């Protein structure tokens, strides 16, 4: 038996291993290991704050600095139509989801590569690594939201009751962010050099998204394709409409964006699972 098998140089084709992806058990397994997501996120936060002098202030710094820059420059130069709301609030509401997205994608995208020690030595559902990065981004966003409260006080502006729509917008935002993060984290294992391009793409993304300006910059006829291409746009627009202007979200735009986000999530999950057998070999 031994002598015979050493002569065979290739396994027969019918033996080839295929990873069977069953969505429900896979999700259940991630749910069972939710504590691990928490622990990994906690690890990243602890490690970050152990070294940093400013501590948790770092979470707030990025959106706050950008908000000040945008307020000083865009408001003066570009004269953005905010629908009557203070510009600082207007842009900060765009910066919160954008920062969440960009932190998730840049940290989560690298999560499998950075955690390669764990990926090829400890078993756990691999989704926990991008999820933990998103959890860290979520904590940052939560802290930055406290500043939003402060801004309301300073500008003496009251959020409108339509703020109740926020969970819907949040769902679209998280689905899209998770989808993109999943794709990138998996692809980055095999295309390492992408991590150098990522910051540039994200930098451009900030200006391709209505963070500093409003949705009205885009021509009416192009708004639907724009919303499909960038689901964050109608989400940000939705936050402004509901929180600042007392209007419901623009369903003509948010609907297609929600579909696009769901598609990103589904495709992202499939790509992730398809590439998963190679993670430990190459990470």
């Amino acid at each position, binding site marked *: 038996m031994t002598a015979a098998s*050493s002569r065979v140089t290739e396994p027969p084709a019918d033996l080839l291993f295929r990873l069977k992806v069953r969505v429900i058990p896979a999700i259940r397994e991630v749910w069972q290991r939710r504590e691990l997501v928490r622990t990994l996120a906690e690890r990243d936060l602890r490690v970050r704050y152990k*070294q940093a002098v400013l501590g948790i202030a770092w979470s707030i710094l990025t959106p706050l600095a950008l908000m000040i820059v945008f307020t000083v420059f865009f408001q003066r130069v570009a004269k953005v139509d905010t629908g009557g709301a203070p510009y600082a609030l207007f842009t900060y509401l765009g910066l919160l989801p954008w920062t969440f997205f960009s932190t998730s994608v840049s940290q989560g995208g690298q999560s499998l590569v950075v955690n390669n020690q764990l990926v090829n030595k400890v078993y756990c559902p691999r989704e926990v690594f991008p999820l933990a990065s998103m959890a860290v981004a979520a904590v940052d966003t939560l802290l930055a939201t406290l500043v939003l409260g402060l801004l309301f006080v300073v500008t003496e502006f009251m959020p409108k009751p339509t703020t109740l729509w926020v969970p819907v917008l949040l769902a679209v935002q998280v689905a899209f962010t998770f989808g993109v993060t999943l794709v990138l984290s998996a692809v980055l294992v095999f295309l390492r050099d992408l991590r150098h391009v990522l910051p540039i793409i994200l930098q451009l993304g900030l200006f391709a998204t209505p963070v500093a300006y409003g949705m009205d910059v885009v021509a009416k006829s192009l708004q639907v394709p724009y919303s499909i291409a960038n689901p964050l746009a109608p989400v940000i627009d939705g936050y402004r409409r509901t929180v600042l202007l007392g209007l419901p979200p623009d369903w003509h735009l948010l609907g297609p964006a929600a579909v696009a986000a769901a598609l990103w999530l589904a495709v992202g999950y499939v790509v992730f699972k398809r590439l998963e057998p190679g993670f*430990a070999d190459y990470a």
Partner: protein
Amino acid sequence: MRDGEIQATRIWKRFRADRQRQLLRDQLDRVKRRLSGGSNAHGWRWALRDVDMAVGQGESIGLIGPNGSGKTTMLRLLAKVMYPYAGRVAVGGRVGALIDVRAGIHPDLTGAENVYLYGSLLGVSRREVARKFDEIVAFGELETAIDRQVKFYSSGMHVRLGFAIAAFTEPDVLLVDEVLAVGDAAFQQKCLDRMRAVLAQGTTVVFVSHDLQAVESICERAIWLRDGVVESDGPVREVLGDYRRTVEQAAEILTPAVGLVRVVKSEIRTPGGDTPVSQEPLEVKLVLESPEPLWASMSIGVSEGPATPIFLLGHEALLPAGQTELRCSIPFLPLPRGRFYLWFGIIESTRDLVPWHPVGQFEVLGPELTPTPRGILRMAPVQVTPTWEVEQR
């Protein structure tokens, strides 16, 4: 499939062997080569070929083999960390894998924080870890260091922390890869005791190690992997015996004596010229050839496994130019029945006149050694003749 069972059938696993990396340019290169009809086969190296492994609940298996034979890869496949290229792997119940206990430990966190982190990596809930926290710390002997950052730990403390956490996870199948290599003798024994306790609870253990004595002390069955293929699979003593013999033979062939002095002939016999017998006199005869007169400090050693001698004998003498016969008589051979190897060397501080290498092997007749109880490391076999008295008091 019952908990604690392992069923791996016809496992194949390959890794990239080409020099290209995981970069866009290299991937495009691969695609280009494949499109132009070039074969991709040379870019791969088989780590495992058609490996079968069936383990029953509660069994203890030792995976042995030289470096690069596929032991760790096999363990990773069983742990579901990696997926096979072909074949089926099924493992029943909760799997605890200690592939590299240092992998899950973050240097910037304190020992205590790491206990929770590594615990949840291994699938233990926080509450469970909290309940066993004191036990874990005590097992790792880390009471004074637990609140320090791990980057300030010694490497022994590092491993003790990892093993201590892992030891308390209570899996159905425990996979252990060469974790006992670090840590002092007392901690190693503690780890072995722990593994024995785990076995007693009915856990299945798969143990990868180069330390054959450790394998022998824990496992009942051994699987010997050679170049990704199962060479033999059976009771631990038989497989280890075969393995030791080939390793020694390979060592003999691989070690050419390139010293100034040459060993021309070696003979290991009783003074009467017969096969050596346990507890009887033995005579070692070596013929050496030296190009010039030398003051030589010679060493003779006898080993069972690779390289670790059971005993060493030293002697200093003047070697004249030409051939010299060296005879060493041992009035009482303390070895049990078995196969042993004779090592010889003339070693000086500045140069090796004869490098330390095996010069011959010999059989010893006599009674079998008392079998080693599980969980005790037997370093080398020595036949001692005691008198026992059991007296009630």
